[in-house]
């Protein structure tokens, strides 16, 4: 193994024994993906420049993401059946009871894992996207997450699943595109539907919506049992709930510490990796490591809070970034390079008060627990809730400005973007910037353009902070 490979695996905390054991599988997966030494050099630079690998927890997370991606690539050879579930990330919890009770079945929240791993860790997302674009044209409507998956399947990197589960939680387009993929590959597919017409005058929880999704989930599990010819006992669902709660609590504690403290103790680039990592289901081998990784990161962040440390110095403008990039830590890292502290994302804060923990006290079973967690995320819950949460966060956590990120190939963020901008400007009276990007597609990252926007916003916020201090 040459120097580049050694450096790469060292960065990911692999011991030489682990490498020796895993190398045949890794080499096979690398060949399927077409990984070259150049790719690894790019990844080393990308990770070291944009993620805080001085944090043991972050290194542990990256290692598990690497191993999970290798498992995904090898799944076709190593498992009897495969099931993929699409966005949102809580699909990870959905898949866990299947894997826990049926080790012969591989399952993954596929577009979340590919989003967070293929570009930063393997430098292969663009290649998958370009391949996927043979079937789904680039640009708006067709989600880059789906294009990546389609491309990877077409390249033979990901195996054709025996079943796909598609959420219509965020968007009506997801199930349609998934259906197109099902037709192309003749894959049975089941949809978890949701109303797309949210009330504009009430806050969450919307019991009707949560109950509907919970019922859809029950229906979906029955369909899974039928198609995969398995049984998923009720106890497995409750066990999953307990199993996911631990890491979720650690993640929410990290997000909460970022909201509560100045300096913000962790970069948004690192938080996004942890956010998606938390939502994934892990192979049996990695389950304990996942718990340990998030706990370690939580403790490290706690230590930083105690010492008053953070990637950006105390007192710098604090912002909320609604939907940071899933796939491109370099663009997320730009905020701190421009002197901005990102205290969180509205994908990881909840109504009514904008804290990082959803109120799940009334959730009696697995279905309502997952349904409510998903439906309480502002992006799932409509404009009224987004407004409620942004207002609460801005006031409670001293947010100086908000960045709204409509994603080119995602209709969810685009549709309410201007409404939210007007709301922040007129009602919250704090600076707001719309920053178009694509949360999956790193090709939309143009450093010059994005940097100019973020730097200008930082300059605007500095002036805003000074004038606010004078006012007070």
């Amino acid at each position, binding site marked *: 193994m040459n120097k580049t490979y050694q450096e790469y695996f060292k960065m990911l905390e692999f011991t030489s024994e682990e490498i020796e054991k895993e190398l045949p599988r890794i080499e096979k997966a690398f060949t399927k993906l077409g990984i070259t030494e150049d790719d690894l050099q790019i990844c080393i630079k990308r990770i070291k420049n944009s993620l805080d690998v001085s944090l043991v927890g972050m290194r542990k997370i990256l290692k598990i993401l690497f191993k999970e991606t290798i498992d995904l690539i090898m799944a076709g050879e190593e498992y009897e059946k495969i099931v993929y579930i699409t966005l949102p990330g809580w699909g990870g919890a959905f898949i866990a009871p299947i894997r826990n009770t049926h080790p012969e079945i591989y399952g993954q929240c596929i577009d979340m894992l590919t989003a967070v791993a293929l570009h930063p860790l393997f430098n292969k997302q663009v290649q998958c996207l370009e391949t996927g674009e043979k079937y789904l044209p680039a640009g708006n409507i067709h989600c880059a997450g789906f294009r990546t998956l389609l491309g990877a399947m077409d390249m033979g990197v990901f195996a054709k699943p025996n079943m796909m589960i598609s959420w219509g939680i965020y968007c009506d387009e997801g199930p349609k595109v998934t259906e197109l993929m099902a037709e192309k590959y003749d894959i049975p597919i089941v949809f978890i539907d949701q109303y797309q017409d949210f009330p504009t005058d009430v806050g969450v929880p919307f019991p009707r919506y949560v109950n509907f999704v919970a019922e859809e989930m029950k229906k979906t599990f029955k369909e899974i049992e039928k198609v995969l010819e398995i049984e998923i006992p009720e106890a497995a669902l409750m066990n999953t709930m307990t199993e996911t709660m631990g890491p979720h609590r650690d993640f929410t504690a990290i997000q909460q510490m970022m909201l509560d403290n100045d300096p913000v103790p962790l970069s948004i680039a690192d938080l996004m990796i942890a956010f998606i990592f938390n939502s994934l289901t892990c192979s049996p081998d990695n389950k304990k490591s996942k718990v340990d990784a998030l706990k370690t990161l939580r403790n490290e962040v706690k230590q930083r809070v105690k010492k008053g440390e953070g990637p950006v110095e105390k007192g710098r403008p604090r912002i909320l970034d609604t939907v940071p990039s899933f796939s491109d830590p370099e663009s997320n890292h730009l905020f701190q390079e421009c002197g901005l502290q990102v205290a969180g994302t509205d994908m990881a804060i909840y109504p009514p008060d904008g804290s990082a923990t959803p109120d799940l006290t009334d959730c009696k079973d697995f279905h309502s627990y997952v349904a409510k967690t998903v439906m309480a995320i502002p992006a799932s819950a409509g404009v009224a809730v987004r407004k409620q949460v942004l207002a609460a966060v801005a006031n409670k956590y001293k947010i100086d400005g908000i960045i709204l990120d409509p994603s080119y190939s995602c209709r969810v963020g685009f549709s309410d973007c*201007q409404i939210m901008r007007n709301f922040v400007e007129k009602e919250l009276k704090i*600076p707001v910037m*719309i920053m*178009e990007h694509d949360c999956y597609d790193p090709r*939309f990252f143009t450093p010059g*353009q994005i940097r*100019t926007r973020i730097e*200008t916003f930082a300059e*605007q916020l500095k*002036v805003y902070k000074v004038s606010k201090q004078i006012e007070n």
Partner: protein
Amino acid sequence: MPFAGVDIGSVSAKSVIISDNEILGYSILPTGADVEDVARRVLNESLKKAGLTESDLERIIATGYGRISVPFADDKMTEISCHAKGASWFLPETQTVIDIGGQDSKVIKLGENGTVISFVMNDKCAAGTGRFLEVMSRALELSMDEFANLSLKSLKPCDINSICTVFAESEVISLRAEKKPVQDIIAGIHKSVAKRILAMSTQIGILRPITMTGGVAKNLGQKKALEDTLGFKLLTPKEPQIVGALGAALFA
């Protein structure tokens, strides 16, 4: 105390020397390939016009896309903040700035003393920028001056539908094949840029008076198209191309 602002844009490099709130000298050069070299040359030229040397300068601020490649600058600011500041210096009544530069266009809403309240920039597309106009003038085999002036003679601007520079170029070639008067084609091109700016402006809600800055503000045909599209007159500083560099010097 003399201060300098150096604005390295995608098309041209500008430098302004100020002292006691007065412009002592300025210079404009094509950017070319060597950013560091042009930054040095444009500064030296402006210093020469001001009758000063670099050692006389208190501080230098760099702006524009090439701001990170000006090693002798003491600090850097974005061109958006600098255009806001510079426009407000030239025309203090300015509430909104429309800056059409070489590779991007911006609409900037101003607060007190030329601070930025809100802004919007074009995306990953050259439509609505100076580069778009350059490509079109080349397609029509006209110099930029001829291109700008001919537009004013148009009585019936053509419709250019495309929002993509490359597709718009093919539209222009088709219009030429249809023997449409060249002045109407150019006026149509200017109108299409103006429509892009209008779309951007509505996103942040522009306030009047509006000042147009950047090299494209010298293009009277484009200015007229913008005024026709927006429905009111635009202000233009005496030398619109140096507004960013002036803003940088004022920040220094």
